[in-house]
């Protein structure tokens, strides 16, 4: 009986000590792990403001946002019509053109191919009048939707807002 109690006591002490040690090491590891996350100066670059007043109809500009390229396309009536013609349920990643723009004239796209991350070529290079990714031949239309090729999803539309008539803010301020 006495020996049994001793053993229970020792088991408990070893377990408690180990649990305390593991919790302590885990807590101490947290700052090390967190130090890899984006630092304050990186988070401060969360938004990019762009003056779009000089972008002519049919013209496209590429701006950097968080170290990645963003396409801003001033669409012609023809491009808009072509995009709306593509509002079909049979697309690989069905989406309405109206849901992908805030103003039909301006298409804002994160220019990172959803296949393996290459930057697609400017508008007009691919089938459907849109963007061709040179790496593995994905074709995106004038709404940035995937129409042909290996990419699984449409080009992402980043969060953006029209600050006023001529200024566009890409991204959301963080921290």
């Amino acid at each position, binding site marked *: 009986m006495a020996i049994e109690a001793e053993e229970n006591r020792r088991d408990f002490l070893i377990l408690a000590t180990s649990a305390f040690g593991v919790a302590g090491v885990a807590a101490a590891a947290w*700052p*090390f792990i*967190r130090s890899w996350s984006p630092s304050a100066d990186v988070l401060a670059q969360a938004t990019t403001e762009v003056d779009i007043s000089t972008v002519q109809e049919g013209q496209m500009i590429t701006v950097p946002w968080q170290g990645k390229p963003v396409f801003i396309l001033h669409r012609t009536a023809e491009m808009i019509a072509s995009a709306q013609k593509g509002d079909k349920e049979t697309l690989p990643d069905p989406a309405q053109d109206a849901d992908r723009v805030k103003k039909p004239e301006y298409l804002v796209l994160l220019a990172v191919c959803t296949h393996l991350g290459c930057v697609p070529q400017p508008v007009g290079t691919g089938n459907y009048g849109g963007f061709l990714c040179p790496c593995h031949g994905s074709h995106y239309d004038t709404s940035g939707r995937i129409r042909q090729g290996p990419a699984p999803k449409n080009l992402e539309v980043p969060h953006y807002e029209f600050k006023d008539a001529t200024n566009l803010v890409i991204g959301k301020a963080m921290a």
Partner: protein
Amino acid sequence: MSKIMEWIDARLPVTELIKSQATEYPTPKNLNYWWNFGSLALMVLIIMIATGLFLAMHYKPDALLAFNSVEHIMRDVNYGWLLRYMHANGATFFFVAVYIHILRGMYYGSYRAPREILWWIGIVIFFMLMGTAFMGYVLPWGQMSYWGAAVITNLMSAIPVVGEDLVVWIWGGFAVADPTLNRFFVLHFLLPLLVVGVVVVHLWALHAVHSNNPVGIDLHEGKDTLPFHPYFTIKDLYGMGVFLIVYCYFVFFAPNAFIEADNYIPADPMQTPAHIVPEWYFLPFYAILRAIDFLGAYSKLAGVVAMVLSIAILFILPFLDRSPVRSFRYRPLSKQLFWIFVVNAFVLGWVGYNPPDASLFHGAVPLILIGRVSTAIYFSYFVLLWLITALDIEKPRPVPKSL
């Protein structure tokens, strides 16, 4: 589980190694808390390597970027302030642990036969540690970093004939500059990894001859020893808890206590701060360096030689001490010499901290004089220890045959 261990043990005797060298490793049952500081030093080494690796992921070893990258770590990197303060204060606590570890060895005669090689490896580690600490202090590229680097590298110029060329070679230029910073960063990264290797040899040497103990006698295994686990694992863990509390106090509540304010001024090769001091752990040796100022043209070289000798003399300590008894517990004269040595080390540190032209009692006692006397006392410890033991002047008290 046991099947898997059997399979491994048949090929690599892991269980046997853990048993013989860790869990069942025979450890003197009378070890006191002064024996905690070896494992504490190892713990700090691990903290330093872990924080250092993560700091290196954000730091930029470039004269134009270094200072700002440290501020970037402090302000922008998540928990960067914690990593840096742990690392900067870790240096202080590393030396606290190592100094106590060395003094413990001196007091209980842990350097005596058959532990000479163990002792020597320890001194080698100490030298490597000083080099690593010095080069690490250069990396933030503040005023103290820069001028500390300038002063310490200039010590080499005291070496006859090749000194001047040697300094230019170390700098990679004609002053401390970008090439110096870049190579110091690489060496500061490399040296601790080498220290880990030498620590392994230190432990190997320890396990070959086993621990000394407060009584200083050779022990009978079993009768005088206990298995390392759980008796000393728990004692080491307890010591770590206490040590970490003090360490964390400084990291969280007084992180700049050991950092000179001037090091938050970016390095300026055109202007030296009014009063430059080394880190506290170098102060006694800095005082010895400055104490030799009465030899004219030879003062510079003699100062450097004295400073190096003050540590290198530890190498011959095993041969200076001729007493039949190891532990100072039974050696009344040696014990007194030891405590004079310890107090004197603090005096040297205090002298080293003050400006070279400072004085006591309104100029009556120049500090340089105290520095010279203290330096003499420092070295006389080794001479007197040899004298009183070689000439049998000290009569040791009776030593127990077993514990």
